[in-house]
């Protein structure tokens, strides 16, 4: 993979608003953002209702995903361009999710909604209409999704990268600071996980840093390229962005996203937890 295959600029999107076979999709943490204004022609996916099972704590299954995309008018051979607020956190999550179900041509709008707005580009509240399709998804690609037992087994043996802010990693905050801090789970991080905040991948305007800067970022923290990597954050959306950088921009192999992330790990009984700014040791 490479930047050319997985990332498009705001200008490219503006130039392709009416191109057949290009479907623009907005996914936001604030699920009302789309309703206030979105890129012309863009459809909305709601990560809380469309992409999550409403009973179990899990994703929608293959049949539900197929029904969702068919109903929204997305075809298997469409180029899906994702964007959203929060520096594309949830758009990156959706990108990873589309890859999980085998969609071949997915791209992120570099800088997301923020870059689009800071460029003073047009937003509309007009709702697009798309013909229904018959979307066929693949089985989930288990090579990019980590579950808790793998994560516990990875302590001290694999690259564990915790992409939350330094204060969340150290246990001084329990959630990103735009959310209330009262949470049920314990604070801290998985012992031996290194802290590379997602934000170090991006410029202030939300666009990704250059490949050279990104390579240096992961070299600095001593990433062992011979080892498999698991990325995590609080609920798996910021770590999707880091998964995107490692897998799609830098072409690293064997990188998984742990979508259970800290809300699951920090609630597990009997697992080790490290506090403070240092990774800690496997026998903590």
């Amino acid at each position, binding site marked *: 993979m490479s930047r050319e295959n997985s990332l498009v600029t705001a200008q490219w999107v503006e130039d392709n608003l009416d191109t057949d076979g290009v479907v623009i999709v907005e996914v936001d943490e604030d699920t009302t953002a789309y309703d206030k204004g979105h890129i012309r022609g863009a459809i909305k996916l709601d990560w809380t209702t469309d992409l999550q099972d409403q009973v179990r704590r899990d994703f929608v299954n293959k049949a539900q995903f197929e029904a969702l995309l068919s109903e929204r008018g997305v075809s298997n051979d469409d180029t899906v361009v994702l964007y959203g607020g929060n520096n594309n956190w949830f758009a990156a999550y959706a990108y990873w999710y589309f890859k999980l179900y085998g969609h071949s041509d997915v791209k992120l709008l570099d800088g997301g909604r923020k870059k689009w707005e*800071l460029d003073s580009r047009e937003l509309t509240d007009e709702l697009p209409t798309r013909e229904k399709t018959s979307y066929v998804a693949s089985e989930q690609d288990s090579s990019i999704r980590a579950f808790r037992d793998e994560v516990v087994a990875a302590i001290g043996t694999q690259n564990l990268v915790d992409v939350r*802010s*330094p*204060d969340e990693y150290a246990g001084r905050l329990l959630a990103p600071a*735009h959310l*209330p*801090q009262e949470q049920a789970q314990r604070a801290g991080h998985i012992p031996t996980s290194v802290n590379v905040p997602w*934000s170090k991948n991006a410029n202030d305007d939300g666009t990704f840093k250059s490949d050279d800067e990104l390579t240096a970022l992961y070299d600095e923290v001593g990433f062992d390229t011979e080892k498999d990597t698991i990325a995590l954050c609080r609920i798996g959306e910021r770590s999707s962005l880091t998964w995107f950088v490692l897998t799609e921009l830098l072409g690293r192999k064997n990188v998984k996203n742990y979508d259970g992330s800290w809300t699951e790990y920090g609630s597990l009984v009997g697992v080790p937890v490290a506090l403070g700014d240092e990774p800690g040791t496997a026998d903590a």
Partner: protein
Amino acid sequence: MCGATEGGLSLDGVNVAKEAVIQGQVLRGGASGGEPVANAYVRLLDRTGEFTAEVPTSASGHFRFFAGDGEWTLRTLAPKAEPVDTRVVAATGSVAEVQVLVGA
């Protein structure tokens, strides 16, 4: 708690006594006030300058963070304006009110 519900996120159900709230409004230009900026982005940076959170401003230019005790920096990005950094101190159980002025 005048103005406590003005930010982007409702305080309904939030135990404010246990939160270190930083909130305020982004205004554009003008020594005597200025216009609220609805499409600005406010970034919360920790004491080392590292990103901690970011919110877009509401229709009335308001924003809110739930930080921790200590010193923080707000970096405000708005269309057609230079970024503005504002230092702020937060403490649990109180609301730090900040007004940010960006270039005209």
